[in-house]
């Protein structure tokens, strides 16, 4: 086991032990370990790498350290800068999980139900990867490659996530069959970019990977009153909802049916839009 203190420590340990498992908050890895499904030969512990648990602004972007916990995403200035991400983080598991689980962990696990992923998708986030031999930056869609699959090489770790600071409201809504501590049945993030005169929509739990509702976004861009902030007309909202639901590619599982997910993601789209542009049709 290596308890890394710096990013370089961690990368060096990974280079030396390519079979090592990365341990950040442990909220996913340890579930498998406890069940005997994940064997551990070597572990690189990341939770004491200060660089990973920090964030800073570079121009119009934020660099979020992969070691920021879900609780961290709700502290200080971050909720003001990234309200949808803070809201998504608040729906993850329990207070205990939010104290331990990290942004990087949510990405690496790459679950279709990962709560921060639709927000990162909507934000056009990129993922900064690092190894002893270098670093690279991937778009989210290039990083999350399938159900619980990511683009990490054995010697790589997630260093940070780059997201833009946007002018405009951001919403995150998540359906679960319990009022707290629940895996999402469907989730939706809606991010308004007033500067770019666009609305971006990320969808969770409706496909193997987080989705963007590109057609719906394109449709909406033409129907928002960008100059006065007025909401789209009711029929434009209906069309938006239809396009969002159409973008979903859900499956039936024990948490919900495909039909329900398709329906619910449309409802979330309508509500998120209404919250972002109040005053129009619900």
């Amino acid at each position, binding site marked *: 086991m290596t308890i890394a203190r710096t990013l370089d420590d961690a990368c060096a340990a990974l280079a030396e032990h390519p079979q090592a498992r990365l341990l950040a908050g442990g*909220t996913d890895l340890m579930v498998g370990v406890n069940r005997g499904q994940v064997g551990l030969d070597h572990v690189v512990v990341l939770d004491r790498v200060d660089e990973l648990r920090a964030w800073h602004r570079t121009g119009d972007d934020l660099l979020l350290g992969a070691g920021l916990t879900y609780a961290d995403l709700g502290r200080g200035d971050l909720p003001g800068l990234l309200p949808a991400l803070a809201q998504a983080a608040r729906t993850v598991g329990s207070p205990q999980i939010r104290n331990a689980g990290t942004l990087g962990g949510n990405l690496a696990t790459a679950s279709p139900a990962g709560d921060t992923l639709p927000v990162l998708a909507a934000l056009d986030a990129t993922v900064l990867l690092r190894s002893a031999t270098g670093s690279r930056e991937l778009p989210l869609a290039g990083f999350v490659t399938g159900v619980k699959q990511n683009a990490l090489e054995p010697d790589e770790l997630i260093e940070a996530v780059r997201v833009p600071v946007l002018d405009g409201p951001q919403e995150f809504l998540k359906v679960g069959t319990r009022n707290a*501590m629940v895996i999402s049945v469907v989730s939706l993030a809606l991010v308004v970019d007033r500067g770019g005169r666009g609305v971006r929509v990320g969808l969770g739990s409706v496909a193997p990977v987080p989705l963007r509702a590109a057609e719906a976004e394109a449709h909406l861009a033409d129907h928002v009153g960008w100059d006065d902030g007025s909401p789209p007309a009711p029929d434009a909202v209906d069309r938006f909802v239809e396009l969002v639901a159409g973008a979903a590619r859900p499956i039936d599982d024990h948490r919900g049916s495909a039909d329900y997910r398709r329906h619910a993601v449309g409802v979330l789209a309508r509500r998120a839009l209404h919250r972002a542009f109040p005053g129009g049709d619900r």
Partner: protein
Amino acid sequence: MSADPYVLRVNGRDHEVPDAHLGESLLWVLRERLGLPGSKNACEEGECGSCSVQVDGELVCSCLVLAASAVGREVITIEGLAPDGELADVQRAFVEAGAVQCGFCTPGLLMAVDTLLDADPSPDELTVREAISGNLCRCTGYGRILAAVEIAADLRREAS
């Protein structure tokens, strides 16, 4: 696979952990190697809160902490909540309010409530409910637990 012996600081004391397997959780090590079974094992996937402990002051599920990774951290368990042998305010409140039935969720809940009251001495009801939403209780329906939190908050404010 075996890990090198390591030392955990639990409830203000250093504990040597020899012969450990690398994959052992903090919960397992507390319960089976350090003789501190107060933290409970109800799900071992972070969904019930029965194993809640404080690590460096933060409430976490000890089942999801790799024990060997907690070296150098300050771990407080239910056994360390009242180190002088007297019951702590939250413990007294739980007894008084009838918040204990089978008691299996109780240690984890006490750790959660203690953490909450440290951060917020006068939490409103919704804050309390959210703060304990990661601690499942199957006996009480939470009513007496909420009553206990009120009593504990009173006790702690009076004492400070």
